[in-house]
């Protein structure tokens, strides 16, 4: 072991990896859920990247997770694009959570057209956010979406079945809903930080 003073030239020469020297910039989009914001390194949803939301079934609270953020993202100039939703968005339900439905564009598409429409929406930079239910999507397709979200500087939310959790994904954030022992969200992957070890629950107010 050398003397401690030999350490500083080594560090200054930048040949030694430091781990994470600086905290990730807090440029996330506030999700409206304090527990979720705390768990994410950017302090919210990744602003120009793909977020993957993994679910056991439809109707378990996936919209309630994103609707507070959508309420802020949907504007007249940049509406929110909802591509191939599994059901009709309920106007009363969305409005009650603060989303102005005049600024939500629903796009009906099937098969590979879903990914195409999402990519167009992301790349155009004309949308506040793009939500999509693509069903099957391989690693290459997800990477294209991630690149499109980055070039268009638009947040993307991808809703998929929980069985895709094992598949590798280029998404900046992967968050999964666990049903046992009780419903709670677990961050599987988050760019810019270690996923928190603890799962957390959202208070289901208003349902």
């Amino acid at each position: 072991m050398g003397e401690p003073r030999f350490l500083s030239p080594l560090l200054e020469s930048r040949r030694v990896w430091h781990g994470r020297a600086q905290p990730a910039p807090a440029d996330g989009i506030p999700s409206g859920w304090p527990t979720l914001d705390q768990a994410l390194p950017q302090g919210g949803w990744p602003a120009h990247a793909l977020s993957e939301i993994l679910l056991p079934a439809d109707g378990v609270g996936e919209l309630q997770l994103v609707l507070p953020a959508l309420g802020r993202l949907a504007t007249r100039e940049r509406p929110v694009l909802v591509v191939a939703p599994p059901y009709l968005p309920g106007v009363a339900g969305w409005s009650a959570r603060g989303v102005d439905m005049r600024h939500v564009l629903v796009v009906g598409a099937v098969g590979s057209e879903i990914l195409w429409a999402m990519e167009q929406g992301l790349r155009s930079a004309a949308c506040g956010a793009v939500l999509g239910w693509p069903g099957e999507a391989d690693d290459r397709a997800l990477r294209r979406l991630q690149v499109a979200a980055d070039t268009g500087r638009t947040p993307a939310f991808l809703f998929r079945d929980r069985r895709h959790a094992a598949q590798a994904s280029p998404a900046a954030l992967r968050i999964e809903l666990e049903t046992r022992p009780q419903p709670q969200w677990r961050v599987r992957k988050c760019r810019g930080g270690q996923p928190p070890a603890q799962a957390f629950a959202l208070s289901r107010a208003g349902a």
Partner: protein
Amino acid sequence: MLWACIVLPHLALDTLLRRQPPDAEAPPLVLIDGPLQARHVLDADEVARAAGIAPGQPLATAHALLARFDAVAHDVALTIRQHDLLAAWAYRYSAEVLRLSGDAIALEVQRSQRLFGDWPGFERKLRDDLAAMGFRHRLALAPTPLAARALADAADGAALTEPGQLRAQLAKLPLVHAKLPDDLHEAFARMGVHRLGALLALPRAGLRRRFGAALLEHLDDLLGERPIPRPRYVPPDRFDTRIAFNFDVENLAALAFPLRRLTGDLATFLAGRDGGVQRFVLGLGHRGRAPTRVVIGLLQPEREAGALFESARSRLERIVLARPVEWLRLRADELPPFVPGGRDLFDLRPEHALPLAQLQERLRARLGDDAVYRLEATPDPRPEHAQRIATDDSRAATPTTLPRPTWLLPQPVPLRTHGLRVLAGPERIESGWWDGGDLRRDYYVLETAEGQRAWAFCPAGERPGPQAGWMLHGWFA
């Protein structure tokens, strides 16, 4: 006034050549004219000219010179339409446009220079446009349209801006360029008059007696000694152009280039009118069959060539070509005013960024006109009628205090699952007796074993048991 004259020496041939991408494999093209027994060459492309084919030759001579070429009969109506389209193009540069006989266009440019800059730069703009459209041309500037015409014939690119020098400059020109009525220059050549100056020196009274008043009027027009009586060009109120092919087109990919030309021409026409187009029709002609019609509707008036081409092409890609295409036609009847969208000076949008309207067009073009929509709330309390697809600018919904799901099923379906737990309810919805859609239901919020929250109902007044007939109508997602 200063007039620019654009002479299109190969208008008829260029009209045919610009329809297809340049192809080294294609046979040379020769344009022929005249009655069936006495066909002669009107114009020929470069390859054919290199083989010795020249305008005026009988068709038999051309066949002797070159073994294989495409002989296309001159379509006068088509050339006139193209001439009109070029006038529409010129109209974007000047309010005063004249169509001169013999494939030339004159436009007044002195007043336009304030907008388009001095003549050398202006001239480059005109030449760039013509080259992009695929027309060979000669161009000159003079104080009168006919003088500009004569100068363009004599020296491409000449610019004569001083009215005082007009007579002196014109006097030097060979008489053939003056384009005298009834080909009088041949008669004058036999009289020994070869230059315009010699003609202008002859006594007017004698000329009038021998050749009539038309010659003197032409000379006056040339020198600007009488007002220009020709009707000014007014662009038509609709656009209708078609491209006929020399061969049958079997696949859609081969239509891309002609389609780009047509939409480009449409954009040029619209720019001249300062208008846009919201709906246009593509017609695909088949031999002996009714043409295939493809209607392209846009959300708002558009006139950018690239956007028009893209929406037209993506709609065209969706059709199945059952039989070969003989001609392609683009027709636009409604040309509403066009208001370009504003952009912020400091707009930091990334590259590839697309305006929202164009994104919607692109999605609609590929996924169908009904695929992109907004939803709006209605005052109807019945869940099936509480929302609809918004038609125009919809109203903001007033949030209700009663629980309403975020996912709505288009039709209620039986909910067959065990372990349901009632979280809230009942809420009775009883309405609709006035239009036959009468319903009486008690709505409950249920939780399934998987943690889903369902919005389900049963007939009013029937207390649901564990196996009761729940009808699922939505999810609180």
